């Protein structure tokens, strides 16, 4: 089998086996706790075509897109700064890594008090999840640029901005892309979590009302949509990511 196809074949086998496990679980625990794959799919189709769903989806997507924009902008700026300035990088990097390990959901009340209930709190929560990996990967990428490339730049008498544009950025692109890929997923997770805890609209809200109403089909349909979207986009990004890394090594 050609290695190019192997990844997709594996992914297909994996998805098929997950569906089999799901069906088996359904047969085991029964109707009251779990909806079957087929029933969930049917409910999902019905839900997606429903008019009110569009509003929820739009709300989540809007919050997510704005949050990802800020994560990227702040992450790249801070990452480049800490990568350049060795002392600041050494001082702040472990602190940022430690912040990554704290359960950020507990910070959500502070954000709610500061931003109020609504879009801005959701965006802020998405950003504090997504920005950290982007900073850390960019920082490492800039710091680990091969010295010979920088020396070449000095020999060619490039200005500071030219060095960034023609040497640092192209050399760092594969690593930065990895950061953006991880940041993408974490921003999505942050936005959804914010909706689950406090909001009146969005996919996270649909999940929580599903529990409240004990509507298992709704809970499973929304979970299915979120998981399918996140996994599909992330797999695609991973594909590009690996290609960028291969090209950089060649």
């Amino acid at each position, binding site marked *: 089998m050609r290695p190019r196809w192997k990844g997709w074949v594996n992914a297909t086998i994996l998805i098929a086996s997950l569906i089999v496990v799901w069906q088996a679980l359904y047969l085991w625990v029964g109707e009251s706790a779990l909806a079957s794959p087929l029933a969930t799919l049917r409910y999902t189709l019905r839900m997606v075509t429903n008019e009110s769903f569009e509003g929820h989806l739009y709300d989540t997507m809007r919050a997510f897109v704005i949050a990802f924009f800020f994560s990227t902008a702040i992450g790249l700026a801070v990452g480049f700064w800490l990568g350049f300035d060795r002392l600041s990088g050494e001082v702040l990097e472990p602190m940022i890594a430690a912040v990554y390990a704290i359960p950020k*959901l507990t910070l959500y009340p502070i954000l709610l008090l500061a931003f109020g209930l609504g879009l801005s709190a959701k965006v802020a929560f998405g950003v504090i999840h997504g920005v950290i990996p982007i900073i850390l990967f960019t920082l490492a990428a800039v710091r680990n640029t091969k010295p010979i490339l920088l020396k070449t730049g000095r020999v060619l008498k490039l200005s500071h901005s030219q060095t960034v544009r023609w040497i640092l950025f192209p050399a760092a692109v594969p690593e930065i892309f990895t950061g953006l890929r991880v940041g993408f997923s974490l921003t999505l*997770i942050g936005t959804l*979590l914010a909706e689950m*805890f406090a909001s009146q609209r969005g996919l996270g809200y649909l999940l929580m009302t599903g529990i409240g109403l004990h509507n298992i089909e709704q809970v499973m349909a929304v979970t299915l949509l979120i998981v399918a979207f996140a996994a599909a986009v992330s797999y695609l990004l991973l594909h590009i990511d690996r290609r960028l890394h291969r090209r950089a090594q060649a």
Partner: protein
Amino acid sequence: MSKVSWYRWLVVVAAVALLELLCLTGVIDKITMQPPHLIARDFFRIIVSGRMNGAILKTTTNVLAAFGLAMSVGIVAAVFLHRKRTLRDTLDPLFATYYAVPVFAFYPFFIVVFGLGDLPQILIGFMLAVVAVIVNTLNGLDRVPSVLLKTARILRLAPAETALRVTLPAAGPYIVTGVKLAVAYSFIGVIGSEFILSRGGVGYEIGFAYLNFDNATMYPLILLILIASIAANSSLSWWERRLLERRGMR
């Protein structure tokens, strides 16, 4: 203490001082946040009075349960997968995209299946942590130098002895990376799900205090979680770095 760690403390002290100033001058109003010195005072009051001991005990037990489960299942699974090449290739897309999927989205579903006890929270912590353990242990097992394994075979070590005296020490630093991530993820999973919906625990108390505008309880508890997770993360990072240094890998 090195220069860098002095700067680190300086950053923390400056940040707290800035918060204090902003609170005292009224830029941040009292309803949003109390000044840090009052948070510190309430923190000691809560610890001394012991009224949160039940919640702290419950959260700690659940975090430890999730962590222990993730470590044992993760290492056994990794050792197994290390031998079964095909199965490992099939599961690779799952591991690669796993952290892009919002695991918390499964929490409502777990509540429906298992009820509102401790089990759904432990399961979420376990699910978040286990893949980090598997991936890092596999990484460590891949990097055991084959010359060491050959030496073990020449010396006719029993499989158990090879595992204990050759594989474990060689893969150690990578497994510790897994341990570090597993601790962080168990924390995040358990406290996060307590916060979303549960009957007790520190995460629950934070959510409860938030809903009652009880800042005198909420901020000290958030501080407690920050201190606990940052302390755990920093000490494990330190151990990880020491193991790597001892092998001359840094």
